[in-house]
């Protein structure tokens, strides 16, 4: 092949290649908004782990995520990155004498935390047990009858935010960790979906997104936290965070607020005047499966 023909072939190949690249480009044929969204998603992909982000980086990713919600869903959301407050250690107590199994907490949790409606993901399970003995062998969490049923009591489980969480050290990519206020969180953009934490958790407190979670646009809770209820992706693990978007602003978690019987007590374990401290000091309390040394920060008590 002579030089001229070689050059012509190369030029032709380069032109064809650039045409092909342009056709395959993620930005080809997109509208203005779509274009912006794709650029934002591309930038999102290269951000760091939340635990290592500087304040500017946090602000930047929140800006991107809020803008993406506008572009993709047409909703104005607010994503907070509030950090753990000093002198706060969250604890939870559940009164098994008071709970009547209404499951308002489950409903509130689904609404508050933008849980997947398609698969019916719940963070909370209310077990119906027979009076007299706590026998989880015969616990039923799918009861469909009038409550409270005769001769039964109710016991709710969710993530216990263990002080010695078995789910955290097994994460291969450090996508989950315990915050200083005791809440075990997941960075949804960091999780690769190996599900080791789910196998490790003896309480089955973690949930996996087997497909893109479906939340109707008008039901999406716009008041979000980066580590809490912001929309998740397909293929990542999520879990109860004691409603981190609420509790870090000084509000009760949605489940505690929704409980009509007052069976749920939530508060700061380090505050000697808190209700949770009063319960722990004055009631007979127990935790589930203490022999596993997970040290849950979630106690059950009776009146």
């Amino acid at each position, binding site marked *: 092949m002579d030089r001229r023909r070689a050059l012509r072939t190369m030029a032709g190949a380069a032109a064809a290649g650039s045409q092909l690249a342009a056709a395959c480009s993620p930005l080809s044929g997109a509208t203005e908004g779509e274009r912006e969204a794709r650029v934002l998603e591309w930038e999102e992909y290269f951000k760091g782990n939340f635990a290592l982000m500087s304040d500017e980086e946090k602000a930047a990713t929140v800006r991107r995520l809020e803008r993406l919600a506008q572009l993709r869903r047409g909703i104005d959301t607010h994503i907070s990155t509030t950090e753990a407050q000093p002198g706060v250690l969250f604890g939870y107590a559940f009164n098994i004498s008071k709970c009547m199994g209404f499951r308002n907490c489950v409903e509130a949790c689904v609404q508050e935390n933008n849980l997947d409606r398609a698969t019916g993901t719940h963070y909370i399970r209310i077990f119906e047990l027979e009076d007299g003995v706590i026998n989880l062998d015969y616990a*039923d969490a799918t009861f469909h009858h009038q409550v409270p049923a005769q001769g039964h009591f109710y016991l709710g489980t969710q993530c216990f935010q263990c002080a010695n969480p078995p789910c955290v050290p097994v994460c291969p990519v450090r996508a989950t960790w315990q915050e200083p206020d005791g809440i075990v969180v997941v960075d949804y953009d960091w999780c*690769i979906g190996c599900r080791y934490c789910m196998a490790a958790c003896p309480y089955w407190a973690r949930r996996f997104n087997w497909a893109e979670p479906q939340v109707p646009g008008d039901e999406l809770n716009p008041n979000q936290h980066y580590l809490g209820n912001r929309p998740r992706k397909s293929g990542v693990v999520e879990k109860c965070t004691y409603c981190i978007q609420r509790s870090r602003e000084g509000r009760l978690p949605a489940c505690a607020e929704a409980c009509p019987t007052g069976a749920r007590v939530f508060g700061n374990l380090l505050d000697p005047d808190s209700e949770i401290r009063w319960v722990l000091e004055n009631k007979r309390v127990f935790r589930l499966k203490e022999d596993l040394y997970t040290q849950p920060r979630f106690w059950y008590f009776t009146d």
Partner: protein
Amino acid sequence: MPTVIRSETHPEIQKYEDVNRDVLSILGRPGRAYYLLLALCIAGVGLLAFSFFAQVYLGIGLAGLMNPVMWGVYITTFVFWVGIAHSGTLISAILFLFRARWRQSIYRAAEAMTVFAVMTAGLFPIIHLGRPQLFYWLMPYPNQRELWPNFTSPLVWDVFAISTYLIVSATFFALGLIPDIAAARDATTVPWRKRLYTVLALGWRGSGRQWLHFNRAYLYLAALATPLVISVHSVVSWDFAMSIVPGWHSTIFAPYFVAGAIFSGLAMVITLLIPIRTIFGLEAYFTPRHFDAMSKLVLFTGIIVLYAYLTELFMVWYSGRSYKLEGQYIIAALTGNYWWAGAIMLICNAVVPQLLWSKKIRRNLPALFVITIFINIGMWFERYVIIVASLAREYMPWQWNVYKPGWVEMGILVGSFAWFGMWFLLFLRLLPAVSVAELKEVLPAPRRWGRLRQPSAPRDTGIPQGPGQRRVEDEEEG
């Protein structure tokens, strides 16, 4: 009566030329059956790719995995293939260090099996991820994310174990190939083969200096690979033993898994070698003696596996725990929803291998072929039972559930065998499947007198008797 010097380990091979002819002829033009098999394997790989992309596109919910069985067929198959890989290194490295010269003819195929089995196993942790495109986040590299993987996670140890094993076994494999590749390079006339072999032979000329370096390097790599036989599968077992899942949380897991790995791996070597022996006419190379020796190892490791089963049963009884809540997997396996898997496991791994006590069966190749296939099936189900039956009956009885694999999982499982088969078929036709150079080490060196009739009894002096050689009085030829 003339004396013929024969190899102690391969008495039926007599001459260097035979080895060259027999081994390099495998590299010749393949028949139609070969292409048919290869096409079948490639179609299977297509099935794997299709299933995987369907799963990525539609979400991993397409697999049968669900609460609480988070790990299913993918991790089962991962452990299965890692286990298969182990015996190759056992044969190529450990038996080399122990100077078990009978390994010379079989180790190349076994080692190729190791490399390809690790390549197959390595796919599964990625397929298993919810977001498989991010698998490289598991790699410890200084990234713009400024984050190392979590070194306390057994899954990260796994990454190290598997990648180390792949690198070391592939290096060992490629290194051992050099002299043979050089021989093939000099013998071939096909241009593309010539080019390929020239690259892989790394300029080997067979000088004394090169042999010296080669032998040193081979010895050191063998020593480096030996601990991996033990460590890699121990690390894989810690994926399970380190968590508090009942049935996983057991100190016996590391030795139990290593024994199981060698058990299944050797069975796979036998399964692969028997057809190769028949198809390529390598009867003189893979003799019943080889299969006998390997079967003994299968029997030995099989007994360790059986012992582990009995220990698990004993622990359940001795600890007095209620099997319902904190049952060891073996009880769940025998009584629960997975009793059929447990039954397959026990029959294939504990009962069938006991046939190998009989020497007649150990040397009966068709019987051995069937038995080793049983063992492979049994070992897959053993991992299935450990992983699935334990997760399905964890601490919260309300959530107990029955796992049924989805079609993508089945497609990927079948595809993994096709993927392995594809590489192995390509290996058979591209690289010498028997080590020519190392086999010649145990054959008597060619010398003129060996061809000639000796008029009288041979002189005892002047005939060097190298290792692995012996003189036999051969009356038939006399």
